[in-house]
């Protein structure tokens, strides 16, 4: 069987993006199941030094495109080089981070190769499929699981006929696993970038970039106090910051709360945000749509504070408090201050 490919993203400071290492870890698992190789497309400028971390996370082969025009990311140069690589290597599966880069690049590549692409998968597995009409059997397909239709259903998508089977996955959804010793060395292949590019690949010019380093790290927080649209306003949301600080944690938010301007985009938890697995998750004024739950249901302990006794979040909570979230949070803050249990 042909290889599994992961498109690797490079951060502003030249490191490998977390989401790419997570995809590699998942890719390693899939490659072992399929008994095939895991290969990485890593494009950038001045890339030396990224190899060891990629090998440690399971890569067998690296395809390196190291050229000034490959950083910062622009669609067309990356598109041309990746299409060139895929047309040569015919990957079985190709995985991308569901980031502003992956979601820009993957659909254009899928269109050129006329193959299927599933966005924002929450699980990837290998499995078989029998076409109900024709009875045709397919073995070892990539089963791509994602919530759909506003999160009211969970769909399993397959690409039976076209290759590569392409999928994007959000940061934090897959777990990062170091599967090899740090000194493991696999194969490194260098791509001749100028050979892949066409005259029109430089049409889009970057004039200025203002990219901040990631300041908010909710993925690594042990405690997350998260607010939904039900928190109502920014003032109430600031109470969550106070509670989170007392618990030594971070503040998260639902998509509705982020869309309403109550919290920064980096705090969004769920299918289209970050997936978190803290020791304690306090859901305040969150009803718990499946997209949100997809990003937090593996938390060790969940407290749900909600006025609606039927809110779906209550079903996955370890503790439910049926009351106005603002009032309960105020009481928790008071209790923590009085009790001097400060993390």
């Amino acid at each position: 069987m042909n290889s599994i490919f992961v498109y690797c993203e490079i951060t502003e400071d030249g490191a490998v993006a977390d989401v790419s290492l997570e995809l590699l870890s998942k890719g390693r698992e899939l490659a072992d199941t399929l008994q095939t190789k895991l290969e990485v497309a890593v494009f950038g400028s001045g890339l030396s030094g990224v190899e060891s971390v990629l090998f440690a996370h399971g890569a067998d082969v690296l395809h390196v495109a190291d050229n000034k025009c490959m950083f910062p990311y622009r669609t067309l140069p990356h598109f041309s080089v990746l299409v060139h690589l895929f047309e040569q290597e015919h990957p079985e599966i190709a995985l991308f981070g569901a980031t502003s880069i992956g979601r820009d690049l993957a659909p254009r590549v899928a269109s050129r190769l006329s193959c299927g692409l599933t966005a924002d998968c929450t699980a990837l597995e290998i499995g078989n499929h029998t076409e109900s009409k024709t009875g045709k059997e397919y073995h070892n397909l990539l089963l791509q699981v994602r919530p759909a239709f506003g999160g009211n259903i969970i769909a399993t998508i397959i690409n039976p006929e076209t290759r590569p089977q392409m999928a994007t996955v959000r940061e934090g959804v897959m777990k990062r696993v170091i599967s090899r010793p740090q000194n493991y060395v696999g194969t490194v292949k260098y791509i001749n970038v100028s050979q892949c590019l066409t005259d029109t690949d430089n049409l889009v010019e970057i004039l200025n970039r203002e990219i901040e380093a990631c300041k908010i790290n909710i993925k690594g927080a042990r405690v997350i106090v998260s607010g939904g649209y039900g928190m109502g306003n920014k003032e109430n949301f600031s109470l969550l910051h106070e509670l989170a600080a007392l618990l030594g944690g971070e503040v998260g938010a639902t998509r509705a709360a982020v869309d309403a301007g109550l919290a920064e985009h980096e705090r969004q938890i769920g299918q289209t945000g970050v997936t978190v697995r803290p020791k304690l998750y306090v859901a305040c004024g969150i009803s718990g749509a499946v997209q949100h739950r997809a990003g937090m249901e593996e938390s060790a302990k969940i407290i749900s504070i909600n006025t609606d006794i039927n809110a779906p979040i209550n079903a996955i909570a370890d503790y439910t408090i049926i009351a106005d979230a603002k009032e309960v949070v105020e009481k928790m803050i008071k209790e923590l201050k009085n009790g001097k249990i400060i993390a």
Partner: protein
Amino acid sequence: MYNNKIFNIVVLAKQVPDTRNVGKDAMKEDGTVNRAALPAIFNPEDLSALEMALTIKDKLLENCKITVITMGPVRAADIIREALYRGADQGVVLSDRKFAGSDTLATSYALALAVKKTGHFDLVIAGRQAIDGDTAQVGPQIAEKLNLPQITYSEEIMNITDTRVRVKRRLERGIEIVEAPFPCLLTVHGSAAPCRARNAKKLMKYKHAKTPSELAEPGTENQSRYSQKPFLNIEEWTADHVNAIPERLGLSGSPTKVKKIENVVLVKKESQNINPNEEGIHLLIRELVNTRVIG
């Protein structure tokens, strides 16, 4: 600035079920989605795309023409009218049973053909993604099919000259200012300016605008009005009108297949209800400390 040359903008829009406000009646007894219970709306980011086109038209006045294309059922003409009320010049409903079951690849194929059929265009603008799928794939796929440079996550047009557009992009951790020559394709991020309200004069002018299918419905009065006022005719194109190859449409043109749809079944955890008074909170915090969840 255009010396009377018309600057043509094609806006791509989708009518979507309002998945943001899914009420209890939106799910049927058997757990399937009751689409009829969800209001059909103009996809929010496509409205922002329309606004971006309108701001360009504000600058260029008569030298700019905005054509809105939507692919969907016949009733999607609703959003064409909404676009006309806000300042679009003309609309096309791309509708055919052959499109049913299209994934993003088959959709982008049909839409790319429709964009081509409009004739000369300088700019294609679409919302980043539709709220019923959230894939953000159709824009970049149309750009590929039309061989256009793409600028995704556009937030604001910073500058426009007769050959180039400068755009501010909204990324996860910041912004990027990029410039591309025409023709190119932009997808618009939700953080862009919201769309202006309907214009009362335009509402009066276009409220009877109809597609041929709508005109053919029984009870449509005053057919002659439509031959006298050509602007009231919303174009309706089928797969044949855009010369689509049938195999590339609908299910046969879609490489992704739905293997399984599951309803979201919550496995109820054993949960403990906490009294929302001070005593209840006190006991909860103590338990969390004792079980080493916090502290």
